[in-house]
């Protein structure tokens, strides 16, 4: 996914049109944050998360709806302002629209902001696929005193317009009926055409005629439409045609300045049409001072903006830990009870070991950190729903800029505190490849929720009352290392400035507790499923390695785990880690929580872990600190690694990201060990 605009190959997939007559494929397109995903949910009866932050949908989601004999397949595209894609998420939308030849495109238009949305409409109308307009958030528009004449809009665009309120499901039935009606006619209808100036129209005709007679265009593009795209500056299409050895009149012969002029004229023609249609169909009845302006005034204040944001984060941090604590204690007590029961039942020692150490220990280590993660997701989604996160990105842009990052990188960082995997996926909203690579390399230094159990264990055992401070210090340390890495990569590898920060700010909304809870549940469940399987499996593997070969003392140096650990341990001797810690680190690669689980197994049981650690003479507070630092910084987990590879699109950069993490972990842990010893010695 990590490609410069213009660099990617057109992935014109060949879609077979051998579908059943009653199968209808539609795409949902529209600007970011207009309610596409909400409509998708009500169309398909599923619960995808919707956000109040541009770019929540970064990949195409598919769903189905059955209406009588018709089966409608719905694809939800990432939001896009136009079809000249600059960011990977926009490219996804553009490619889907142009290559998959759906039966119809439904464009969702935000009724409170028709004119800006119509710009995309002017592009959709030209593709030659039937378009249906769904006018969303009509209730909000009414509230704001905006009235929209849907019939006038329909008459001007010459495509069906349906009023809907996606949130409540109002108008959905009518929309579905319209879709079926439009697609059954099998023609794109006769949509409004743009009025280009004479010179542009001439170029379009000329190039269109040339293309029509010389080549078969990819994805069944009409020659006329291809000509317009070329004139608008579609570099991918130009490259594709060049590779076929075509010299296209005007495009290849005129100078860039003239072509820029033409592209700008087309842009203006689109805006004029959008403006014309808006003027006739939209009435704004009130001239108002908007409360959002007043609120923005304070929240994005030059001086107060950052402190306000930091206070919100401080409370979010406090809540994540304090409010989750009772649940955590409860879960620990329940599992302690299970283990007791297990030990009191008379059974084969091998089976008991499997059940008590393997199964209960494993499940326990997964469940113990669940409350923290759920609360963190809940708080993040509440913040997002209010519309504040986008303002926070603006506020943080200056800070991010000074360390060589883009303001938008900040949201992935924030998500990274919950889980690195969605954070890395969220980097798709960044435009420049350099910004994206630097952000992806630095995200794993954001201490994700999975590392917390390790800190809670070690800080609790070795630092007692100061545990909270130590944990907070680790979070800060992660951020510092991220800043340092960003600076290094920006100064040495990707010289130059981060790309300019431009972002649409969503409207403020009152967060809905239900929506936030739903989001928390789906995010948390997804996480639980993935983590649960991986961690549980990991713990069982550790248990097996600690038990085999048969007959050895459980978790001793003679077991397989011990043999592996002792073989690798010399590498970590400068950091003072014993072989148990090393085995923990190795298995931590599966998922960081496994570190606790596997140490629990190696030290003979989760519930005795704390006392065993405290009693181990090779472990001192400074070694514990170095270990926590190492866990914070070293490899991301397998899942994160997979996403890094996917988003980087190159093994080389994936390798660099991993190598950099291990290097930083080793260096910083070494420094922590010696600085810690020095302080304690003094």
């Amino acid at each position, binding site marked *: 996914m990590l490609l410069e605009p213009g660099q990617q190959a057109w992935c014109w997939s060949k879609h077979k049109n051998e579908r059943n007559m009653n199968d209808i494929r539609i795409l949902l397109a529209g600007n970011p944050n207009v309610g596409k995903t909400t409509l998708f949910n009500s169309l398909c009866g599923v619960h995808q998360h919707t956000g109040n932050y541009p770019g929540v949908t970064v990949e195409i989601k598919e769903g189905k709806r059955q209406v009588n004999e018709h089966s409608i397949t719905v694809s939800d595209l990432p939001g896009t302002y136009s079809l000249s894609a600059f960011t990977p998420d926009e490219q996804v939308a553009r490619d889907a629209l142009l290559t998959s030849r759906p039966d119809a495109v439904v464009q969702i238009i935000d009724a409170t902001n028709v004119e800006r949305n119509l710009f995309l409409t002017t592009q959709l109308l030209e593709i030659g696929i039937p378009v249906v307009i769904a006018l969303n958030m009509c209730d909000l528009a009414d509230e704001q*005193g905006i009235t929209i004449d849907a019939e006038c809009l329909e008459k001007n665009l010459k495509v069906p317009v349906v009023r809907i309120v996606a949130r409540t499901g109002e108008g959905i039935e009518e929309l579905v009926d319209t879709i079926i009606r439009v697609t059954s006619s099998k023609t794109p209808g006769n949509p409004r055409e743009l009025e280009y100036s004479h010179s542009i129209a001439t170029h379009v005709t000329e190039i269109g005629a040339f293309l029509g007679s010389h080549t078969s265009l990819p994805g069944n593009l009409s020659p006329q439409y291809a000509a317009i795209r070329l004139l608008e500056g579609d570099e991918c299409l130009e490259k594709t045609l060049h590779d076929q050895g075509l010299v296209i009149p005007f495009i290849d012969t005129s100078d860039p300045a003239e072509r820029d002029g033409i592209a700008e004229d087309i842009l203006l023609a689109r805006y004029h049409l959008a403006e014309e249609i808006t003027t006739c169909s939209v009435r704004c009845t*009130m*001239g*108002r*001072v*908007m*409360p959002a302006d*007043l*609120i923005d*005034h*304070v*929240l994005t204040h030059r001086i*107060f903006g950052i*402190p*306000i944001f930091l*206070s*919100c984060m*401080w*409370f979010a941090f*406090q*809540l994540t830990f*304090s*409010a*989750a*604590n*009772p649940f*955590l*204690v*409860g879960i620990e*007590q329940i599992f302690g009870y299970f283990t007791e029961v297990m030990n009191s039942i008379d059974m084969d020692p091998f089976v008991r070991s499997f059940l008590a150490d393997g199964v209960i220990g494993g499940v326990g280590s997964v469940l113990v950190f669940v409350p923290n993660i759920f609360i963190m997701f809940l708080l993040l989604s509440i913040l997002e729903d209010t519309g504040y996160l986008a303002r926070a990105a603006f506020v943080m842009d200056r800070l991010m800029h000074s360390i060589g990052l883009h303001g938008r990188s900040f949201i992935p960082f924030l998500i990274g505190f919950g889980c690195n995997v969605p954070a890395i996926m969220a980097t798709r909203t960044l435009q420049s490849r350099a910004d994206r690579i630097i952000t992806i390399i630095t995200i794993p230094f954001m201490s994700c929720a999975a590392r917390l159990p390790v800190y809670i264990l070690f800080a609790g055992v070795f630092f007692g009352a100061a545990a909270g401070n130590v944990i907070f210090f680790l979070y800060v340390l992660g951020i510092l290392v991220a800043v340092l890495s960003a600076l290094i990569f920006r100064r040495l590898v990707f010289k130059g400035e981060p790309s300019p920060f431009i972002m649409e700010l969503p409207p403020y909304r009152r967060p809905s507790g239900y929506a936030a809870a739903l989001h928390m549940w789906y995010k948390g469940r997804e996480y639980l499923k993935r983590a649960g399987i991986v961690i549980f499996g990991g713990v069982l593997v550790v248990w097996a390695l600690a038990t085999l070969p048969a007959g050895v003392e459980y978790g001793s140096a003679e077991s397989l785990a011990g043999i592996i650990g002792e073989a690798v341990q010399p590498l970590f001797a400068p950091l003072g880690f014993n072989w148990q810690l090393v085995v923990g680190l190795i298995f931590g690669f599966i998922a960081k929580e496994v570190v606790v689980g596997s140490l629990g197994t190696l030290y003979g049981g989760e519930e005795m872990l704390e006392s065993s650690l405290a009693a181990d003479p090779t472990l001192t507070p400074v070694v514990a600190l170095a270990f926590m630092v190492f866990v914070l910084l070293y490899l991301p987990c397998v899942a994160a690694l997979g996403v890094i590879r996917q988003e980087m699109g190159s093994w080389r950069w994936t390798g660099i990201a991993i190598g950099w993490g291990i290097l930083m972990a080793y260096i910083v842990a070494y420094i922590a060990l010696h600085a810690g010893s020095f302080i304690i010695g003094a």
Partner: protein
Amino acid sequence: MSDTTYPHSYLYGWTTIVTLATFVAGLLSILEGAGFITGLFILPDIPGGCILVLISALFGTAVVKGKIDRPGWISFTYIACLLLLVFAGCAILVEGGDYLTLIMEGEEADIITIISSAFIWAGILAIPLFFGVSKILYRCSCGGECNE
């Protein structure tokens, strides 16, 4: 705009009082957290105290702006109140969580710590201000004038 349902001048005066109250509450939290004062009915909390001082700076800015710039007063007061109330809610949850944890671990805990955070004292003072100001803010958005 003098025929307002809420007397602006009273609300404006009240803002001054809340400014002082949040500042004192924040200062006491910090001092208690640092160990200079003990035995007060306020939870020791240095970061929390700093946040209270920040909120009092927001209220203070509102007071200063209010002399010439009424929308400025409204926006700063509204956000400061909102933050204070939300944080007070968070403080109750945080202390409640800690309390519950202690109980579950079978240790001694004093239920009064739940409501002894300085945020709550300051938050109670800010409630009437919040309702008054949000009413004015809402009117700003519905075609009315923010200026008197």
